[in-house]
């Protein structure tokens, strides 16, 4: 500030200046916050309130009425195993088991060997991440054509077994869902791999060196040292897949549109909406949201209490 500044002048107007400063600051905050806040109010608050309301509504010829019919319909339909909704619940469990019970351990092993700098680990890392950056449309399109009835896979099998083999991988009530589960496994390692190798690389090297000196085997190293030390990352991932049990739609829209016993909850809701039905899927959504909130909270508690966070 120049020495010539008139301090009397300044103090006379200082309140006004300060108010101006405050207004400018508030305007700036408003400018950056108004759109996202409105978005939140519409697409989170209003949308979810509307979902809850719709779950208890039904459109009839007399207009909209309040009712529990959507829920009674749901409880009636889940008891009939042939219906789409029952198939969907079963398939969502299958997807969950594929992701957690089979996918996560395999992904941990894969990450472990990359972390251990197996021969060619740099190239493997780049290739293994490919499915994560290529569109599901493309991956499924290729997979479907490769497993087509007259496609390469059957061709290879025919050559191996020396007879014509034409398994209908993509249009069979009994095998198509398992083909899709295998697809999810085959294409689903990328994200986990990045997170787990990242977490493993943050483990201090000397911890593992001491263990080696004490004659610790690779298996014990993985199970007793590495997994507990990356537990914060691992448990967050597990929590995500648990909270996604009922949300998951899988790549069903791309594969079969729910035919051949491949319906999932996410796709079932999508199909209902596409068909112009809103109330029934809202009721199903509300039911499963209410079921999964306690599951998520309890798992969080268990995860946090069984293994303490390790500081290093």
């Amino acid at each position, binding site marked *: 500030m120049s020495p010539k500044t008139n301090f009397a002048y300044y103090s006379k107007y200082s309140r006004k200046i300060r108010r101006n400063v405050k207004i400018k600051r508030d305007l700036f905050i408003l400018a950056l916050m108004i759109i*996202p806040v409105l978005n939140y109010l519409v697409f989170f608050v209003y949308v979810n309130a509307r979902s809850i309301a719709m779950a208890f509504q039904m459109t009839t010829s007399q207009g909209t009425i309040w009712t529990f019919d959507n829920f009674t319909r749901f409880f009636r339909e889940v008891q009939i195993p042939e219906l789409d909704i029952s198939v969907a619940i079963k398939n969502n469990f299958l997807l969950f088991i594929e992701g957690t019970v089979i996918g996560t351990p395999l992904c941990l092993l894969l990450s472990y060997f990359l972390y251990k700098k197996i021969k060619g680990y740099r190239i493997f890392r*780049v290739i293994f991440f*490919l*499915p994560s950056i290529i*569109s599901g449309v493309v991956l499924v399109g290729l997979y479907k054509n490769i497993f087509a009835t007259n496609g390469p896979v059957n061709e290879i099998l025919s050559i191996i077994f020396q007879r014509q083999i034409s398994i209908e991988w993509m249009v069979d009530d009994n095998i198509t869902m398992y083909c899709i589960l295998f697809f999810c496994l085959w294409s689903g390692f990328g994200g986990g791999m990045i*997170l787990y190798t990242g977490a493993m690389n943050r483990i201090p090297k000397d911890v593992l060196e001491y263990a080696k000196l004490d004659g610790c085997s690779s298996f014990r190293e993985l199970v007793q040292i590495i997994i507990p030390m990356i537990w914060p990352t691992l448990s967050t991932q597990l929590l995500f897949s648990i909270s996604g049990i009922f949300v998951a739609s899988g790549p069903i*829209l791309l594969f079969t549109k729910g035919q051949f016993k491949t319906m999932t909850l996410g796709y079932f809701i999508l199909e209902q*909406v596409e068909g112009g039905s809103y109330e029934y899927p809202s009721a199903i*959504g509300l039911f499963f949201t209410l079921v999964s909130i306690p599951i998520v909270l309890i798992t969080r508690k268990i995860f946090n209490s069984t293994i303490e966070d390790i500081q290093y």
Partner: protein
Amino acid sequence: MRNRLKRNMRNKTVPETILFTVVFVIFVIYAVSLVLPFLWAFLSSLKTDDEFYEAVFALPKDWLFINYVNAFKEFKIGNTTMIGMIINSLWLTFAGTFVTVMISSGTGYILAKYPFKGSKIIYDIAIISMIIPIVGSLPATYKVVTTLHLNTPITILVLYTGGFGYNFIILNGCYRSISWQYAEASMIDGASHFRTYMKVMLPQARPAILAMAILSCIGIWNDYYTPFLYLKGYPTLALGIYQFDIIQEQRSNMPIYFCAIILSIIPILIVYTVFQDTIMNNSVAGGLKG
């Protein structure tokens, strides 16, 4: 002594060597299974339609690169040609990324550096909203989008203006770690709040913003779900490939389908090669969906 210990640590025991060899073989098989389909698609894109069905494995008799030229004319959904789809994809990719990154950057910055009444509550609400597993909000969202006529390529950008997701958390942390003194210095020099944000603070968060933008571009370019639900009349390349696959039952032209697939992954592969480290060394990558 110490040297011997070190050597012991580095040299693997015999069972370990066997284990690593076995795993190496498995890795090679898996890697081949990931790459081979794309090679097969590329070869198939150069064949004639008959050749595709008769000789699934054979190399193309003539390498018909002309198929790619034809694809631009014949790969059509409704009135939209391949060029139209590419334009739709590019628009949605860049505009959507710009909107989503700038909005998250704004909320992240304000909640990090401009505490106001209720700012802590907003932060807490954002975190809680991310954790609650909401299953069926699609019907209501769909209704809102159609009633407000948001299902056009320009208004659809409203769907990308959510500022309280994962990107927000990352950028918020990023801005928290940048010292406020830079902003103070700039404002003493007479710069406004907005100018300070754009010229001084935002550039310091550039690494995080760049990583986020790249991942967002890949995500939107690959996304078929949003266009499928809301932009059926303006198919993007991803949606076009999906729809072409369905209408194929009537008029089959497989090589062109594979041309479209190859063309759609070329930009992704280029970005992946150039920004490989940014994409893979960032914790954001874990959330990328295929």
